């Protein structure tokens, strides 16, 4: 509750500052619209914004699901095959030095202007934090549990499924938290580079037409979407952590 009050207070302060700046320097609308103008755009173009937000949200959602599945799958495979993990490690490190944003034009070239390129962007961004987080958890299972499980005669797969995976769920959730924050970036950059739908496309178009108020409105919608995603990921992470610790 205190966090909500504090957040509300700082948001109100930012709004006042924003409005004050616009008044003080008498900024034209196409440079920096005031909060009132943005709110008006938000209301006037609500259907347009909702339509494009739905596209972006679909891309983010698909990216999150596919990226999480692939990332978790790789972590499971690498946890079972440490030899493969050692061999792949340098490849993974090098792959992370490639800025995903630089791949956006190529992905658009390969996959066209539709949703696929944006989803792949989101997947590429999500994949790594999810798989490293989960793998980290899978690798540091309490050694006493593993010894007990082996004495009990447990097989590798069953030990993985009944013991290592449940114990690593909080780490998977930590990766999901990062993923929820980054996924929208991937989708929006994909839309910037080439597309005809989505909030990123809408921002670009509004910018070109000097509809700065609409640009800010789209940005606000994007921020709100990301915050909601992040809150959902936080809740999931808390639940998984409570489950794993039995509290």
């Amino acid at each position, binding site marked *: 509750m205190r966090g909500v009050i504090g957040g509300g207070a700082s948001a109100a302060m930012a709004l006042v500052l924003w409005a004050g700046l616009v008044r003080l320097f008498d900024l034209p609308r196409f440079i920096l619209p005031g909060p009132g103008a943005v709110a008006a755009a938000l209301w006037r173009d609500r259907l347009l914004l909702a339509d494009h937000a739905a596209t972006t949200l679909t891309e983010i959602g698909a990216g999150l699901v596919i990226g999480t599945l692939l990332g978790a799958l790789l972590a499971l495979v690498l946890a079972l095959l440490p030899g493969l993990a050692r061999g792949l490690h340098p490849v993974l490190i090098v792959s992370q030095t490639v800025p995903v944003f630089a791949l956006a034009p190529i992905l658009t070239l390969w996959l066209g202007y539709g949703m696929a390129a944006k989803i792949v962007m989101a997947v590429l961004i999500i994949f790594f934090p999810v798989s490293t987080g989960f793998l980290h958890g899978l690798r540091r299972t*309490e050694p*006493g549990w593993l*010894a007990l499980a082996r004495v009990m*005669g447990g097989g590798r797969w*069953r030990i993985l499924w*009944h013991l290592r995976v449940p114990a690593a769920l909080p780490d998977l959730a930590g990766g999901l938290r990062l993923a929820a924050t980054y996924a929208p970036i991937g989708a929006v950059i994909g839309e910037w580079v080439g597309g005809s739908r989505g909030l990123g496309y809408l921002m670009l178009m509004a910018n070109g037409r000097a509809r700065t108020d609409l640009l800010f409105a789209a940005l606000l919608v994007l921020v709100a979407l990301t915050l909601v995603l992040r809150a959902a990921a936080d809740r999931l992470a808390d639940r998984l952590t409570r489950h794993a610790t039995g509290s």
Partner: protein
Amino acid sequence: MTALLLRGSALRGGRVLLRDLDLAVAAGQWTCLLGPSGVGKTTILRLCAGLANGVEWRGRLVTPGPGQVALMAQDDLLLPWLSARDNVALGARLRGVPPDLAQADRLLARVGLAGRAGHKPAALSGGERQRVALARTLMEDRPVILLDEPFSALDAGTRARMQDLAAELLARRTVLMVTHDPAEAARLGEAIHILTGAGAERIVPPAGPIPRAVEDPGLLRVQAALLARLRAGVPCAA
């Protein structure tokens, strides 16, 4: 009948972990292995449990095969996300056979946790968690039971009650218990070995069935003798 025999030396990477050990554990009774930290008690248990990866044994080694051993450690090793009942039944799930939950409940009742089967470990006290671990050990129903200082983290009263309970429930099984507590060894040992850097030495246990009364004069004498040997750090003639 000898259930376990470790005669020889253990090495890991050329380093000697145990030198000239001669330890025979008879079937159907409690054997206590007493010794200071770092003397290799844990290595012996790991050898017996088939967990001694990378340890080379030079000499004769008779240990139970896979599926013959149950393990109970100082840490209860309960999985926090499972209920007491599911923790007790964990072994079956790990082996891919349907768990006998009714049997798990019966064993929980025998360790005095009849009403607590649905509780997660976080909702249980340290003593209760160790009771669940004991029930899990019984559930495995193996001929050889390895106990690695199972009661050393408990307070004195709980420890004494757990010793009574374990002695009752694991009577006539082959039990090898590692401990650093002379009182525990004197209470529960039907055979007692002191392990030092120079090997294992057999000590005559107090008379009488286990668990022995703590105030028994014979027990107190053995306890004092064990403590004296641990303090001296070397074995001496009995």
